[in-house]
């Protein structure tokens, strides 16, 4: 059994590396294939090995998805907020440090989450009925705080308008019939595409990337960001409709000024903590909060304490390996970015995202991409924070709770 589990973990790490590095490919795509094949697979592989594979893949994905977010400006939903601080560091020649910070956040979040696992299990069942009632107010207060934090009245108004615009557009997009990948189109346009287009028009040049530069972040900020990431990852893991990005918005209001570096640690840690702690939610309150856990529930059925412990051990092994792979791949990307003309790289990525958008959803997909890019560019030109574009996820969540 141990050999089967170790092979499953290694396979999960490899597949998670692929899904993390490839924009547009999410682990949910792989889990759907695994569940569909489970009737055949279960003749050869014990169900717990399949579950372990999914956990290892999911954890690894949360480490590696920082790389396309930083170097290519092509984030998934979990990394959307990291694109701008990551891009800023890339322009300063510190792309590798941006990935390293994200990796540090993810890694320490795994360790802290595992240490606090028993507490999470005990508190989840107790908190769940109350948390559902107050989360909408927490979200509204956090959003208002972020809007009011802008420096002038004009920027406050602009932030609110952009927030509502992104949210309303997202509600319309999610309700469009026939769209296969609404989230990919929305987030690519709002965050990745708009940032890349602006940097192309501004003739941004990516300097040589330094891989040996020391991190410029006090240990105190790493600790703050990691604790906030784990705490809010816990909330994201069991509250319905609240994902990593929404939690990151709320978390950023509690950590104080931790800079771009601290924010990268926070978002990286939050994504990973959310994924790991969601194992708690299926065990403690019998609620599956993401595609990976739904798939595990379908394949294994009953998740007992022994299964949870196996998953925890698998997550620790996968996290250790993911750190090594992530840092190595980031160095490869540094060399690639240095050798390739940045303009050509950006154009290639833009063409790739456009082609993906067309492949998934044809002309309608391109239209959604174009409009979301326009909203993203508007936020940049108005000089307000890109975090207000998270209205695209928060407003649908508010509708879910309020209506």
């Amino acid at each position, binding site marked *: 059994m141990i050999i089967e589990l170790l092979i499953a973990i290694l396979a999960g790490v490899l597949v998670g590396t692929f899904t993390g590095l490839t924009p547009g490919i999410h682990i949910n795509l792989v889990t759907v294939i695994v569940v569909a094949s489970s009737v055949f697979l279960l003749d050869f592989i014990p169900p717990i090995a399949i579950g372990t594979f999914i956990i290892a893949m999911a954890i690894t994905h949360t480490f590696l998805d920082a790389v396309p977010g930083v170097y290519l400006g092509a984030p998934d939903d979990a990394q959307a907020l990291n694109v701008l601080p990551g891009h800023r560091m890339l322009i300063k020649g510190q792309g590798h440090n941006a990935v390293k910070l994200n990796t540090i956040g993810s890694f320490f979040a795994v360790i802290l989450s595992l240490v606090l696992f028993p507490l999470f299990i005990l508190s989840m069942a107790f908190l769940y009925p109350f948390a559902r009632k107050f989360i909408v107010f927490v979200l509204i207060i956090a959003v208002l705080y972020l809007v009011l934090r802008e420096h002038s009245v004009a920027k406050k108004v602009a932030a609110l308008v952009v927030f509502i615009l992104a949210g309303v557009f997202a509600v319309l997009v999610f309700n469009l019939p026939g769209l296969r990948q609404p989230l990919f189109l929305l987030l690519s346009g709002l965050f990745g595409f708009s940032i890349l287009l602006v940097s192309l028009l501004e003739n941004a040049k990516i300097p040589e990337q330094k891989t040996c530069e020391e991190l410029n972040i006090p240990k105190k900020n790493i600790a703050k960001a990691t604790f906030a990431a784990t705490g809010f990852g816990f909330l994201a893991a069991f509250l319905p409709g609240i994902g990593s990005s929404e939690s990151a918005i709320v978390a950023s209001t509690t950590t104080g000024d931790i800079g771009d570096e601290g924010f990268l640690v926070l978002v990286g840690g939050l994504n990973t903590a959310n994924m790991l702690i969601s194992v708690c939610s299926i065990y403690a309150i019998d609620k599956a909060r993401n595609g990976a856990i739904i798939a595990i529930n379908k394949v294994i*059925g009953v998740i007992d304490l022994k299964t949870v412990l196996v998953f925890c051990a698998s997550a620790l*092994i996968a996290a*250790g390996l993911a*750190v090594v792979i992530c*840092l190595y791949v980031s160095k490869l990307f540094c060399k690639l970015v240095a050798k390739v003309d940045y303009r050509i790289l950006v154009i290639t990525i833009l063409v790739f995202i456009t082609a993906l958008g067309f492949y998934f959803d044809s002309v309608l997909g391109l239209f959604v991409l174009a409009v979301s890019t326009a909203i993203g560019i508007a936020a940049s030109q108005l000089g307000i924070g890109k975090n207000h574009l998270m209205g695209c996820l928060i407003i649908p969540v508010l509708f879910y709770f309020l209506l």
Partner: protein
Amino acid sequence: MKEATLLKLSLCCSVIGICFLFIIVNAVDYSEKQLSYITRLDVDSTLKFKGVVAKSSSTAELTTFDLEQPCRTKVLLFNKNTTIPAGTKVEVIGKVSENTDKRYGGNYEIIAQEVKIVK
């Protein structure tokens, strides 16, 4: 934090994880119970049972069989299309559940996670 430190720490964690996995898989075992001693307190608990398959049937996504000790209890194995021949000695690890369909007799059934053939 230096990159070398981070790499050493991560590899240590992987090794600790492997040791932890080894301990869980080998040391953590389920309590074995006789079918006749199952009570309401055992509902929702994961236990181990050994017995002989009395009769078995399967569909695309469900295998059911009666586990006999000689006391009989129904066992359900989801997502599996396997026919276990009657008379096979098996070890079942599964969760005890209340049997809501009294046509099959008995108060409890077992939702199996794992069924091993014992020689």
